[in-house]
């Protein structure tokens, strides 16, 4: 048994980092780029996970179809949240998104369609041309999706969509006066963020092969929020790095046993207390340092 566990463990962690990163990047698009608070991202991950689980176990849909459908379903959910959000001020929105998370979890728990308290098991691993993906090959799939998502996020940031998001984030009234349709773009921001969550949920469901309502509680949303804030709002590289830290650090300090969570949270508090921009956020110490290196390299190039 032992060698298998040792081999599988890093792969498992890598897969988890990949799926979390997808959801966190989506969240960062909503919060970092467009400045819209979403404390219920886990709800959309849940929507994606359960959609895919039901489609593949009950209707034996192929994985690719269910992946797309679960992203789409989460996007629809996100659009509905967006519809609510355009009417609300910042703090009201934050609490509403918490509420949506709680309501979604109780729906998952209460209705037999989602397996109730027992959840849904026996979710098939995806297979392509008769080859079933598991372990390293599944991690590969996750990272292919992650790369596509990162590309999508980078493109979004550089496109007119990203500019509109930025305008809304900086000053809604000014954006409105530039004839930017604030309502529409807020909804798009929520829809994209939620859609990323849905994709992550689908990947998570087929990785674990068993999901239950308690996988998608508010504390999962908070974990994702932590990733985004730790990595730096608006920074895609930071979010990816933040995911790796948040998933790996508790594993690294595992020997501390019961003090591990306390140490972990303390580290987080100290980090945010002294570096509120996050690790790679705008104007953070690390990103300024990296920036200065790049600038120095450029100067040297220019001197020749």
């Amino acid at each position: 048994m032992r060698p298998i566990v040792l081999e599988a463990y890093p792969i498992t962690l890598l897969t988890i980092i990949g799926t979390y990163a997808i959801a966190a990047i989506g969240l960062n698009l909503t919060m970092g780029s467009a400045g819209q608070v979403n404390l219920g991202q886990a709800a959309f991950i849940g929507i994606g996970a359960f959609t895919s689980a039901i489609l593949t176990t009950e209707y034996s849909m192929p994985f690719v179809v269910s992946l797309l459908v679960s992203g789409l379903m989460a996007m629809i959910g996100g659009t509905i949240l967006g519809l609510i959000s355009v009417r609300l001020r910042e703090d009201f929105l934050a609490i509403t998104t918490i509420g949506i998370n709680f309501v979604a979890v109780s729906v998952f728990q209460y209705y037999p369609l989602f397996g109730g308290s027992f959840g849904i098991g026996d979710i098939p691993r995806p297979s392509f041309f008769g080859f079933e993906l598991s372990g390293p090959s599944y991690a590969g799939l996750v990272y292919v999706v992650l790369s596509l998502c990162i590309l999508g996020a980078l493109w979004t940031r550089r496109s007119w969509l990203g500019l509109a998001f930025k305008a809304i984030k900086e000053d809604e009234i000014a954006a409105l006066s530039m004839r930017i349709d604030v309502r529409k773009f807020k909804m798009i921001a929520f829809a994209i963020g939620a859609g990323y969550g849905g994709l992550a949920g689908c990947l998570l469901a087929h990785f674990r092969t068993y999901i239950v309502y308690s996988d998608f509680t508010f504390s999962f949303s908070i974990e994702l929020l932590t990733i985004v804030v730790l990595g730096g709002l608006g920074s895609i590289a930071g979010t990816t790095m933040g995911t790796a830290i948040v998933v790996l650090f508790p594993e690294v300090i595992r020997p501390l046993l019961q003090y591990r969570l306390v140490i972990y949270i303390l580290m987080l508090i100290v980090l945010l207390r002294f570096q509120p921009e996050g690790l790679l956020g705008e104007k953070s110490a690390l990103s300024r340092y990296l920036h200065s290196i790049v600038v120095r390299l450029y100067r040297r190039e220019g001197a020749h």
Partner: protein
Amino acid sequence: MTIGFIYVAIAMGLTMVYGVLRILHIAHAGVYALGAYAGLTLYLATGNILAAGAVAIAASITVGYLIQRFVYAPILGRSPLIPLTLSVAVFLLVSEMIGIVWGYYPIGFHTQIPFTTYFYGEISITSYQVLVIVATLSSVLLVWLLVNRTRIGLASRAVAQDSEMAQAIGVNVKTVIAFNFIVGSALAGLGGILVGIYYSQVSPYMGGLVAYKGLVVIVLGGFGSVAGAVLGGLILGISETLLVSAVGNFLPRESFAFLVLILLLLFRPQGLFGRRATDRT
């Protein structure tokens, strides 16, 4: 119904903090749980419930003040997400520390208050309920007097309205913030020990759900209004009970509050008693 009064105590504390700092103070839940544990410990040692209540409140005030001084104060004026994340982190930290010190499992909190039921015609009320209602009502009254009849209360209302302007006319904003944290945390400690007595047990994460519901209450009442928090807490407590008996259990009780909240905000985005926000948008 009785739980509504406890919501009132928690939500008033949250409102006082929100009023001056504009932070969604989730760590309030940690303060609340700590109050309950401190009270329990002293009660088990001395058997005096009043002393236990006093210690619960004193412990809550200390922790609340420390949180304000060392966590929130240095990061004011940042994007609201950062204090929020920190607040959740502090809540988890406090809960974990409680878990390490007192154990992660719920501890029984059995008080020797004579359990009697009084009848007034159709209405029956237990001595626990009387205790909760009397304790909450008197503390609400006390806070109301503090906010409306004292100098520092006036200053704190000024800061809640416009902290820069208050500073400009000579209000010591730092003192006011500390004052609000102390009063708010005292209310949390009181709520904690009351809930501990009411359910006869305490657990490290007991504050979580209550804190989120407390947030719902301050939305219902419109942010930053003490009277709104009182009404909101009672409305939530009553409507939870009534809704369950009226429409039956189509969802677990825990999510009712949030469902009500979402529906309400669709029609009244400023909360039930809040005025239309004019400062932003």
